[in-house]
């Protein structure tokens, strides 16, 4: 398993953002659903080794990220797109992706090729030399995805990756997710249940810091056949599980 989370909690002062989460994920696309404030982003930040868990056990790529050397090894094989993507406006697309390739300690000789490939994969080949300050929000999101995949990560963590993408780009992005999921573990946190239905092989639903559902998209859909609300079957499953968890 590339991701093994056992009874992990995370506190920020008095607020418990993640309360005893246990999850496992191997290669494939793993969807992380939940309402605002459910703890998805905090869980992703812990998986990205940005913050440590308060309690519990976290193993990534068969390593313990709590220790310095394994954490560094994990980070070399990690791709992360945070919810709020900060960027340096003066950098070009290629420079920004190259910057992160270098921070991920990719072998220097492989960097130029990897940068070009990553940019092509998010359909930004024509704007590789454009300054980031000149790009639209959707294009910036794709730059963020490019920096996340530039090192061909074994563990890819994407927080709201499709926010700001137009429908055509979202369709292409789902195809990219499926392709990446062939060899890597891709964890996608999203509000958009149609993204999960189209691309994910496994899905977890979080609410109030806890995982209230863990299964396949088909199993989530089945939860909503009788009492859920929503336009799509997966939405009905989503609302039904949430309603049951809050009852």
């Amino acid at each position, binding site marked *: 398993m590339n991701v093994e989370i056992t009874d992990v909690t995370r506190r920020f002062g008095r607020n418990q953002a993640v309360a005893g989460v246990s999850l496992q994920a191997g290669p494939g696309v793993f969807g992380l659903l939940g309402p605002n404030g459910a703890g998805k982003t905090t869980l992703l930040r812990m998986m990205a080794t940005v913050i440590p868990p308060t309690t519990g056990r976290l193993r990534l790529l068969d390593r313990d990220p709590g220790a310095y050397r394994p954490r560094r090894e994990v980070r070399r*094989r990690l791709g992360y797109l945070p919810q709020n993507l900060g960027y340096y406006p003066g950098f070009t697309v290629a420079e920004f992706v190259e910057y992160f390739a270098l921070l991920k300690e990719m072998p220097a000789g492989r960097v130029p090729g990897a940068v070009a490939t990553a940019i092509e994969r998010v359909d930004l080949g024509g704007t590789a030399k454009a300054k980031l300050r000149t790009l639209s929000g959707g294009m910036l999101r794709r730059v963020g995805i490019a920096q996340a995949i530039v090192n061909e990560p074994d563990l890819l963590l994407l927080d709201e990756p499709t926010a700001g993408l137009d429908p055509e780009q979202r369709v292409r992005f789902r195809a990219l997710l499926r392709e990446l999921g062939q060899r890597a573990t891709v964890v996608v946190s999203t509000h958009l249940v149609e993204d999960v239905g189209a691309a994910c092989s496994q899905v977890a639903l979080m609410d109030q810091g806890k995982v209230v559902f863990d299964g396949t998209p088909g199993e989530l859909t089945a939860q909503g056949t009788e009492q859920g609300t929503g336009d799509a079957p997966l939405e009905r499953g989503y609302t039904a599980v949430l309603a049951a968890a809050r009852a």
Partner: protein
Amino acid sequence: MTAASAPAAPWSAVLGSGRLLRLELRHNAMLWLLPVAFALFWYNGYREIMALPPMWNLRAMTLQNRLLFDLMIPATGAAAWMGSREGRRSITDLVAGTARPRWSRQLATWAATTAWAEIGCLACVAVVYLITARHASWGGPLWWPAVVSVAGVPALTAIGFAAGAWFPGRFVTPLVTVVVFFGLAYGTQAASGDHSYWQISPLTAGAFDIGAAPGVASFYPYLPDLSIAQVMFTAGLTVAILGALGIPVARMRWLAAAVTAAGLAAAGTAVALAGTGRLDPHGMIAIPALHDAASDQPVRYTPVCGRTPIPVCVHPAFATFLPAVTAAVGPELTEFAGLPGAPARISQVAVVYRQDPGNGITVSGGGPGAAAFVLPDEVPGRLGTTGAEFAAQLDEGLGLQLASDVILGGSNRAAASAPSQAELAVIAGSVRFPPSVEARDLAPVFGSLLPQPGSPAAQAARRFAALTPAARHAWLAGHLAALRAGRVSLAQLP
């Protein structure tokens, strides 16, 4: 361990760091602030340095005093801006999940900022030194003042960068710039005397109360003692701050703490060394622990002499002042040449500096006779001194010294015998004082050599001064012995 998780080969890591540095160099705020740095230096430093006579000691020491101060605002500001970049751009989460340690990432950004600031610093040094090399009459570049400036730049950028990294925000840049500005400015003003710890300020070139003076480091070599302490201080400060940046990095905490401690120890030692400084007679700060006795040997030189009735010879570094010297005392040289007691040649000698209790410094020099003289430190262009003021100083010093020595008979004269009124009149009539000096200003100093204003002797002096130097010479050739013997009355003066 997979290939991706394995550390890159050493050469690849170096290449990767090089690429990172190249990216940082391309996108560094200091690059855009270089024109500001050059403009500040031109306005505050360059114009004043170029107004000074083309002497290496004057220009190099003034350069040290100004350059770092002019670079301070752009260098510290740019470093603070770059240090706060990750926080301001909300990119901390993104970079925190990368393999390269934060310390390494920060050092790359700091190094790029420092590299541009150093390029600016070296460009300013190069311009001043190249121009000085074209005009200086003697000697070569003094490198220590430039080394102190160059070593001070990383300290400025380290302070700014650390402030930006620790307190990321838009206001940290102006705030840290203002704090460092006043810190540096106060540091240059706080030094008092030759044993002050504040001499460690990299803006302080030589003895604080003298500053860059022509008499310093011309007859004797430039003492690097204080410069070495200053370089040690700025290097230690830089290392300590950069080390402190790495303390939060888990694996490197102890290494960073050791680096910080070593830097602080170096900086502290340098401050302590500066406190042991003493003003040497040649106007420089000697620090016993760093002092090389070989530096106390005078510099060999061939004097430059003028073609005047009494030749005047100066140190070659002062060659540009020789015409002014001979013009200022030319009439006296003509008047006294060949008279009994007149020197065959007048040579410039080194100024002697002595630290007084408190903050004062006594400047003296010259010999007991008129054969040796010192040039005043206030040469044209320094501290706003004009050519006329320089000439007046020469006449008051060298002219009066020559006249009194010849008229009164120098060391042959009995010590107890006071000059006669006729002798005073001839001395005053031979030396061309500005009216204000004749009337008042010099009286307390040279009261024993000048007649009272308005007295019969002063009127006789005015009469004697109206003669040409040749006429005065002719009269003195026939009457000097009688004048010294007191057998000439005021009425007998021409």
